[in-house]
């Protein structure tokens, strides 16, 4: 069930790029492999914060730090990019990749994970890196505002949809068992709450009038009352659902599609009104310049927006941002009748302040109210 689904398996690649150590590292250079010694040296060098490959060697080494869910998609896109870059510049690119929760990844990069490129699930997580002066350009000025792929907040329900869950209002029925991750740690959980609250504010949840803030908050409380487990990230939450717990999991559409591709028999339900999840990508200027990898890093980010890469994203359940690919895949990603974005709440900064502030935010208050009854 878990096979390679865990995003944490990729963490062996977590280490910063290494200087070339031909005797120990060159694949096929002599028959002697010293994996243990090599590992120890890797760890030691990593611990020392080693300087990176000197310019002048042929291969460029890029480190990609990403959030947990697009691991499979990047696994396919990276070889495409390597071939593309080789044909254009004659250079080889090697990759080190790391996948974990968006917030944790953002903190890791700030704390010294020297990633040349980050792909995260929330704009604010990229902003945090910018605030640490590691991203110095305006990443939102890139094509598509730096958003590389989309998804929507959707539901996973049991086969045959035995609880007849078709829209947000159904999540509040008494006795239902709902899963959503912990909004304190999970970007996905915040998207879920914004989707739920936004749909209610827009008058798309039966029983709540449009712009009835009190009513929308009350609805949030009723759904939160049904939540039985809050895992620490979106993927763990869906794994809990796969273990047979819960009637419905609120999650990314792409996670449900990927799970189905892997043989899970749950069903996807897209509510009538939901939020567009926009996931950004950016070059980390500070590290890319230090490594002398800016050209390759920028080429990689640009490549992610090409139809070839967008096609792969679509294949793994992400809604493409490229209009041509979006057109071609429209059958797989049905239009949401009432789709909104984080602008509904005045952008992420305001949404975080109004809704997710500890104790005084709407979400915290709804959690408290849900436990009080």
């Amino acid at each position, binding site marked *: 069930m878990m096979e390679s689904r865990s995003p944490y398996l990729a963490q062996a690649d977590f280490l910063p790029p290494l200087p070339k150590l031909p005797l120990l590292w060159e694949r096929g250079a002599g028959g002697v492999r010293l994996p243990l010694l090599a590992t120890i040296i890797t760890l030691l060098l990593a611990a020392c914060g080693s300087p990176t490959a000197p310019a002048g060697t042929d291969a460029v080494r890029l480190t990609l730090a990403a959030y947990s869910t697009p691991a499979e998609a990047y696994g396919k896109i990276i070889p495409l990019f390597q071939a593309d870059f080789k044909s254009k510049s004659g250079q080889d690119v090697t990759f080190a990749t790391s996948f974990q929760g968006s917030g944790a990844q953002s903190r890791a990069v700030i704390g010294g994970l020297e990633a040349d490129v980050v792909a995260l699930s929330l704009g604010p997580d990229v902003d945090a890196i910018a605030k640490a002066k590691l991203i110095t350009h305006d990443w939102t000025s890139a094509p598509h505002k730096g958003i590389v792929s989309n998804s929507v907040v959707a539901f996973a329900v049991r086969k045959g949809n035995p609880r007849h869950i078709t829209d947000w209002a159904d999540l509040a029925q008494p006795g239902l068992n709902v899963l959503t991750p*912990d909004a*304190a*740690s999970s970007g996905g959980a915040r998207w879920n709450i914004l989707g739920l609250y936004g749909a209610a504010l827009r008058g798309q949840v039966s029983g709540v009038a449009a712009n009835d803030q009190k009513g929308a908050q009350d609805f949030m409380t009723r759904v939160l009352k049904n939540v039985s487990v*809050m895992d*620490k990230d979106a993927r763990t939450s869906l794994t809990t659902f796969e273990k047979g717990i819960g009637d419905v999991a609120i999650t990314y559409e792409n996670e449900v599609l990927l799970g189905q591709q892997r043989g899970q028999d749950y069903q996807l339900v897209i509510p009538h009104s939901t939020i567009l999840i926009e996931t950004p990508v950016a070059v980390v200027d500070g590290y890319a310049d230090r490594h002398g990898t800016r050209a390759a890093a920028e080429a990689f980010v640009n490549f992610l927006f090409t139809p070839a890469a967008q096609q792969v994203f679509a294949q793994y359940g992400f809604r493409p941002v490229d209009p041509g690919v979006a057109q071609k895949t429209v059958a797989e990603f049905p239009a949401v009748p009432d789709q909104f974005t984080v602008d509904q709440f005045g952008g992420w900064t305001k949404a975080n302040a109004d809704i997710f502030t500890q104790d005084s935010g709407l979400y915290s208050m709804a*959690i408290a109210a849900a436990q009080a009854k």
Partner: protein
Amino acid sequence: MTAVPRPTRAGSGAPPPDPIHWGRGALRGAALTYLLVLLVIPLLVILQDGLQGGLSGLWQAVSGRVPLAALWLTLWTAAVMAVISAVMGTLTAYVLVRYNFSGKALLNGLVDLPLSIPTLVTGVMLVVLYGPQAALGGWLLNVFGWHIIFAPPGIILALLFVTYPFVVRAVQPVLADLDREPEEAAATLGAGGWTTFRRIILPALLLPVTSGTLLSFARAIGEFGAIVIVAGNIPLRSQTAAVYVLSQVESENRQGASAMSIVMLAISLSVVLLVYRLQSRGQRGPAE
């Protein structure tokens, strides 16, 4: 600390070069440095972090509804665990010491197993066994309406599992060394088994039972791996202090995380110190 006999000896003429002395100093230095680097410095960092805003800042950070509820849940589940552990641990130790049966060696070896199982795995095992979809968990839910996993009983079960060896291993050696004569005398005087246990054996075991129980309590305060799997982690309902610390780290509230850590540390440390005191008093006791 400074009661080293060196100065007095220095007064009695020129001290010969003393390689053992030198070695002793180096050993002591190494041990202290190790302790300092591994334990003391990280603790000081946490203290500094959590006390940024002084004691009032610390209080403010942990007196919100969510952290207080997390702390309360942690304390009461640990207390329930401790009571069950005290009774059942003593019973287990008694059986292991006083009875002979086949498989005793195996059972004795199993006692320490929880210490070597990753606590995350403990959590997963409990979910597999008691989860609402599992045979046993489903039966308990349907027949009795008991929610085990994602509710306090799950937390208590996880804590019981994780701290299983503490009471058993505290009681076992004392019970094994216990002088049997008073018991035989009691039996001769016509005391029943229960009376003998209550009047003769139990008083002797009071100290090890108490210290084992308190140690298991201290250990339970900080338990994370098993809890994060079985508890459900919903603020104000099923989020424990350790899981709360994680959620604060994850949401960039380092001071909140450190403040709660300090409170947990303070509780555990005072319990451990209490055990230490009880034990040293117990050792001195018979001599006085």
